[in-house]
């Protein structure tokens, strides 16, 4: 290109003119553009004491062929979680380094200051809460060894473990717990704030006992004490400082089985065994290394070639999962998300006509083939949604949880009944869809939405933004439809109510930004919230599920499952409903 320009221009031009000859855009564009490197290194790095698998070239090619077989696997229904091997697992062995991935790189590793997914994954090894939760969402002892509830259901007494130390050697006491609950998380966490505000009084009769008194019974209270909701942080480090800018945030100090070693930004995070961990003999692993790999194909490659032994959550794209299921040295686990229980839906802004008409929303729900979404977009990973409450959350009632079946004919009949007849081009009305900017698969979902709606005469125009603009637009109610997914946190009062009660219509994401308002629903949620009696709550939730399934304020799509894939040599990965967010205190390589 420059050659041509040299031909055409005066030779003795001034230097700055030569600058003119060069179209920076073109070269910069080339300089910038690139793509995924699908296949790559098979040489194994030597990491710690763990000997990596050395795949032969044939192994890699077989992997590639299995990928080519993927179309046959698509549409075979949901992926079954692999059952553990029938032979008993080998005894726990001390030693070894676990290398895994973190996607995307979190800004900070202190729970409370930051609560996003990757932070929960990595910092979950550094910090702990009073409890963790079993797959059935019952509390399991962690930093608290036991708990009792008074007869009036307002006073909780937690007895703490006795020999817990923070990573800087300081013993953990009831003061740290009370500080974490009443000051640290109340100040920082929008999720914890409304719940901990109910605590009228918090006292420490002795250094290993905490007594919390609520102003009224609140049944879901016990679900607020894992490390993601309320990690216990050292009072002597944080009290009296600005929590968000405290220098200790760069070198996290918790009570977890692993302690922070170093963080090379953009490269990796490293943590090693905490020698004074309060459970003797644990953890088994020497080190955990989180590698930051921004490209999805590179991540899949890392897992395939054994450079990492574990992936979770966002690391591997759904279409890659069938390939890894077929590999004999890997295990794919789909459980471990019972606490989070994430539900995806098409978000509706009720202020935009005609989306405020329930018949229109029901029609849209009929027009979607949720099985197609599950099998074609998510490759069978997850479950089709049946209502606003996920099947693994408490008080889910399968008897009333039913969504509109896939029936475009019914959809069109409903739209006709709503007075929206097609015009000369077959279009009944037009709306916009703001795609969720958190990955390729959400883009495909929005594209499917457009196609499905077009079939029943609804014209959809897509809008894309990046994360900052998306959050702002949702918060400002500046959208017509969008896509979203939220966690349920184990109990509908904690994670479900916020999207449907009129008192939570606020100009912030993760509230009732859609603007749905139904006094009956408000009343039912209020009853469930205030009652201390599980039977009363169950009835209220059953009634509210019935109403919501009928009114479809949001068009629910899928119960999301995030596969955890690990080498079979790694044991005790998913032990509780915290899943891979757990502290890995008893994980081992053998």
């Amino acid at each position, binding site marked *: 290109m420059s*050659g*041509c320009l040299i031909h055409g221009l005066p030779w003795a031009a001034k230097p*700055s003119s030569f600058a003119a000859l060069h179209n920076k855009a073109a070269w910069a564009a080339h300089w910038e553009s690139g793509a995924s490197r*699908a*296949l790559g290194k098979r040489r194994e790095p030597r990491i710690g004491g763990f000997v990596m698998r050395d795949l032969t070239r044939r192994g890699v090619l077989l992997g590639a062929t299995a990928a080519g077989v993927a179309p046959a696997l698509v549409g075979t229904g949901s992926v079954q979680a692999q059952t553990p091997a029938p032979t008993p697992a080998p005894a726990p062995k001390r030693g070894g380094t676990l290398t895994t991935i973190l996607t995307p790189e979190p800004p900070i590793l202190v729970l409370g200051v930051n609560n996003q997914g990757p932070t929960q994954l990595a910092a979950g090894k550094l910090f702990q809460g009073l409890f963790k939760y079993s797959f059935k969402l019952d509390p399991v002892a962690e930093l608290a060894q036991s708990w009792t509830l008074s007869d009036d259901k307002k006073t909780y007494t937690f007895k703490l473990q006795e020999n817990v130390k923070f990573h800087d050697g300081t013993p953990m006491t009831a003061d740290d717990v009370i500080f974490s609950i009443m000051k640290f998380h109340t100040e920082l966490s929008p999720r914890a704030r409304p719940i901990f505000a109910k605590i009228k009084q918090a006292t420490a009769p002795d250094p290993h006992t905490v007594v919390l008194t609520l102003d009224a019974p609140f049944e879901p209270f016990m679900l607020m004490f894992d490390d993601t909701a309320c990690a216990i942080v050292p009072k002597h480090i944080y009290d009296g400082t600005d929590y968000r800018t405290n220098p200790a945030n760069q070198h996290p100090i918790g009570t977890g089985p692993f302690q922070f070693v170093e963080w090379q930004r953009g490269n990796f995070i490293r943590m090693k065994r905490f020698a004074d961990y309060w459970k003797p003999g644990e953890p088994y692993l020497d080190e955990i290394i989180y590698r930051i790999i921004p490209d999805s194909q590179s991540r899949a490659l890392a897992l395939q070639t054994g450079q990492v032994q574990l992936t979770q959550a966002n690391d591997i794209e759904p279409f890659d999962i069938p390939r890894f299921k077929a590999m004999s040295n890997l295990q794919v686990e789909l459980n471990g998300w019972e606490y989070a229980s994430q539900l995806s839906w098409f978000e509706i802004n009720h202020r935009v006509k005609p989306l405020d008409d329930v018949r229109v929303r029901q029609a849209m729900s009929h027009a979607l083939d949720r099985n197609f979404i599950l099998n074609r977009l998510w490759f069978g990973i997850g479950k089709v949604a049946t209502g606003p409450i996920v099947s693994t959350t408490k008080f889910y009632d399968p008897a009333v949880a039913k969504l509109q079946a896939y029936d475009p004919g019914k959809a069109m009949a409903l739209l006709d009944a709503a007075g929206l007849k097609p015009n000369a081009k077959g279009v009944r009305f037009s709306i916009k869809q703001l795609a969720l900017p958190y990955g390729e698969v959400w883009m495909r979902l929005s594209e499917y939405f457009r196609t499905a709606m077009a079939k029943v005469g609804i014209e959809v125009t897509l809008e894309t933004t990046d994360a*900052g603009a998306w959050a702002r637009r949702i918060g400002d109610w500046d959208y017509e439809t969008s896509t979203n997914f939220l966690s349920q946190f184990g109990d509908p009062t904690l994670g479900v109510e916020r999207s449907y009660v009129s008192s939570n219509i606020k100009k912030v994401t993760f509230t009732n930004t859609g603007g749905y308002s139904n006094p009956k629903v408000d009343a039912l949620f209020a009853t469930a919230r205030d009652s201390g009696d599980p039977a009363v709550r169950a009835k209220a939730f059953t009634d509210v599920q019935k109403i919501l399934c009928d009114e479809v304020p949001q068009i629910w799509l899928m119960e999301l499952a995030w596969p955890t894939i690990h080498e079979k040599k790694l044991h005790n990965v998913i032990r509780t409903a915290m899943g891979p967010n757990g502290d890995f205190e008893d994980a081992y390589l053998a």
Partner: protein
Amino acid sequence: MGSARFWRFLAQRLLKMAAMIVAIAVANFLLIHAAPGDPASVMAGEAGAADPQFMAQLRAQFGLDKPLSTQLLIYLGNLLHGDLGMSFRQGRPVAGLIAERLPATLLLTGTAFAFALAMGMLLGALAAQRVGRWADSAITVLALGFFATPIFWVGLMLVLVFSVWLDWLPSFGMNTVGADYTGWAAVADTAQYLVLPALTLGLFYMAVYARLTRASMLEVASQDFVRTARAKGVPEGRILRRHILRNALLPVITYAGIQAGQLIGGSILVETVFAWPGIGRLAFDALLARDYQLLLGVFLCTSVLTVVVNLVTDVVYAWVDPRVEVG
């Protein structure tokens, strides 16, 4: 050119440069703040839960609740003290973050640049020597090919050949994590990770330099002073070295100078794909997270480098070619 004039020219340019940088800082500030959403909304979107108090707290912490003009003045004030501010998202000084990632990018783009320049000039000179013959056609076609191909293709072929089939090179990362090499072992380790990304970036520019060199040499070879030298009986080799090359390389050097100024900014996608922990990726992530201070810091660095390199190029050019006037 008289030396007094030269120094005056230099002083003038330095002054202009300083003013330019301040203007750039202001313009960048306004540009970045024009993007919808702010760091608070990004963090709210990621947190899975939010309330108005959360947003207000974050905004107050980042100083975003003040009017824009106040924020600008604060920013400029800090800048004049050499303080680039704190990254909102990571809670660490911007200068530190940039300093950490800069060497990786410079290594990558510097290597690509050196490779492109050397190979490009070589191939271009070769093509000019054998103009019209098949070597020339082959090199021109190759150059056009690399120039027109989206870079990821080149990369894909390279990975396919060198990583999958031959298993000679790794396909992502910058070094072997956990191996803790030091000294020469570390250099050798990073070198093998560097090959594919540098090659991917370098092949396109090699094409540009090859064509530029070829065209420029042909242009010069047809000029009168070369014909005169030939008529005088000067040996061909000497004509090539002393007359043709020195003049033909001027536009190549100019362009190389311009490109040197882009060394910092230029490699977002390659860094993403190869998981190369550099500054291009840092800037892109900062944009997505609306981490204003960090993004402004990166823009400032690239601007300063570009302006400085432009100045150096102009000065070198003026010093080398007496025909060119300065000022």
